């Protein structure tokens, strides 16, 4: 007997058996919003046939605070600390993306030293994000504790650097329109250099533990395959896109900042599965280390703020601009419309994890619930920026 349409959305968090002669015994499960595997307050309405996912609808908005409206009611500078709260692991890259968009809007130049600092901090953020992701992914696979703690040990070292520079571990609020806020002393640059020089050894240790691990390979290889066509059409960016084999890195394509000066490679995946997404991040960290070593070696002395830059009473001329950078999770962009006033008329955040979630259902169909957890982990979401 048919009790209800098994594929219709069901409100509320509950487990609902669905009986119907075509679908056998389908079970509807609400995973989340309070579930350790969902990396925040995120819910997946999963319809299961046995253990296989036949339908999955992501539900989010639990952390929604209408960030964009807040941005429209604050001055340009006043939004800078709010951008830290988007992707709270990567406040430095969020700051940079926002500063870049405003600089495009106002035609603001950035001094050389500040450009180097931006690259250094963005690449440190990439190390931090990818290290955490690898730890969390392994945690999702069931490797309880050890890999995550190894990752967090290294993450703390980077956060210590951020704290000594900006005063805050995670909410850095460091970039400004036309430069940066604080000039690091030479001792800071030396400390960063020591950390970067030692990071390769940590990655070797981490990889020795994980990359060839049979259980990790069994759990992740062939799981959640993403084809290149779907990835491009669905606007997937960042390591997820490159794991699907599409060579698109905004650092290379847009050549923003001073990235063209650095020699680095863009690693590409072959299969687009979860293992590739893990591997791409490890390889990207190794490229980041190369960029960092060169940037820390070459960083020139000089001002960190353009003397013509105006922070308070900043009113760009009417117009609009879209600025984007390659964040650790993908393309993070800001779209600003100015009407000549002190506040932006429209302030839009293009959040990478929000768009990357579009293909979650496509990746999970046909896999088991346990695999859905790993696939979600490999997409690398932060709900602060998904929900905004």
């Amino acid at each position, binding site marked *: 007997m048919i009790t209800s349409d098994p594929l219709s*959305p069901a409100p509320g968090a509950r487990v609902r058996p669905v009986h119907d002669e075509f679908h056998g015994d389908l079970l509807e499960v609400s995973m989340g919003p309070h579930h350790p595997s969902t990396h925040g307050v995120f819910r997946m309405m999963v319809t299961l046939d046995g253990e296989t996912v036949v339908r999955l609808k992501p539900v989010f908005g639990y952390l929604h605070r209408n960030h964009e409206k807040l941005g429209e009611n604050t001055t340009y500078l006043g939004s800078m600390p709010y951008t830290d709260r988007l992707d709270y692991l990567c406040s430095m890259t969020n700051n940079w993306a926002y500063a870049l968009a405003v600089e495009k809007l106002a035609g603001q130049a950035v001094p050389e030293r500040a450009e180097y600092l931006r690259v250094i901090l963005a690449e440190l953020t990439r190390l931090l994000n990818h290290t955490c992701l690898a730890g969390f992914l392994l945690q999702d696979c069931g490797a309880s504790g050890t890999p995550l703690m190894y990752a967090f040990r290294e993450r703390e070292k980077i956060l210590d650097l951020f704290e000594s520079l900006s005063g805050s571990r995670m909410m850095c609020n460091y970039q400004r329109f036309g430069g940066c806020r604080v000039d690091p002393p030479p001792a800071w640059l030396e400390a960063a250099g020591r950390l970067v020089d030692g990071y390769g050894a940590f990655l070797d240790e981490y990889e020795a533990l994980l990359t060839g691990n049979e259980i990790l390979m069994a759990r992740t290889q062939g799981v959640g395959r993403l084809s290149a066509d779907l990835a491009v*059409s669905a606007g997937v960016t960042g390591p997820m896109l490159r794991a699907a084999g599409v060579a*698109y890195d905004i650092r290379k394509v847009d050549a923003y900042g001073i990235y063209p000066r650095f020699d680095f490679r863009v690693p590409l995946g072959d299969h687009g599965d979860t293992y590739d997404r893990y591997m791409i991040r490890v390889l990207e960290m190794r490229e980041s280390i190369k960029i960092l070593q060169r940037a820390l070696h070459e960083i020139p002395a000089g001002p960190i703020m353009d003397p013509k830059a105006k922070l308070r009473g900043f009113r760009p001329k009417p*117009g*609009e601009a*879209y600025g984007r950078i390659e964040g650790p999770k993908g393309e993070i*962009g800001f*779209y600003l419309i100015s009407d000549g006033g002190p506040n932006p008329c429209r302030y839009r955040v293009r959040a990478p994890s929000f768009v990357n979630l579009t293909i979650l259902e496509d990746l999970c169909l046909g896999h088991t619930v346990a695999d859905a957890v790993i696939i979600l982990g490999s997409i690398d979401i932060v709900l602060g920026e998904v929900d*905004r």
Partner: protein
Amino acid sequence: METPEQIRDRLLARFPGAGVAVVANPSPAAQHSLALDAAHAREIAAWLRDDAELRLDYCSNVTGVDRPDREVVETITTAVPDPAGGPARAAEQKIKRTQPGCLEVVYHLYSMARRHGPVIIRLRTGNRTDQVALPSLTPVWRSCEFQEREVFDLFGVVFEGHPDLRRILMWDGFTGHPMRKDYVEPDDYEWEPTPHDKILAKAKKHYPTEPAAPGGAAEGAQP
């Protein structure tokens, strides 16, 4: 990459009768955009994606912009002939006119194949109240799926042909569209534990009306 003017000319040659106009962007970013009419938007979007020259296969950013009604003051200068036969006098007349607002949806397109961009297209609704439907571009670019849902949720643009148009960030029972400029948030009176002055007057509106006690005096009323 071609300039927006070149793209417009090719579009007009390919789609005669379609409304395509270049919207200039005066900021130093100089990212000019193309305003398309809703009737041809999906055909044009598919053409932009498949055209060998442009190959805009990647729709990066979809967002709404609320353009509320504006009051525009127009100055009309008319020549009034001098009855005495002298030179005509210029008379200025100021007319206040309400320029109707609209909701705008902006798409930032890039090409991953040809590595160029952005090409920005904008679609506009008829007004902000009853003609808020626009064609969905999700069949062309899958990345519009969640972002168009967000525009529907926060701005109230109805996308025709969207496979799953529901609210995405606000809950299903919510009414209103918070990103509109004239959105008024619900009266939040609970933020101060001991209200006084203005806040007290505001809070009193939310106090329950006291039921009349049988004795005549209001129950619970303190002297």
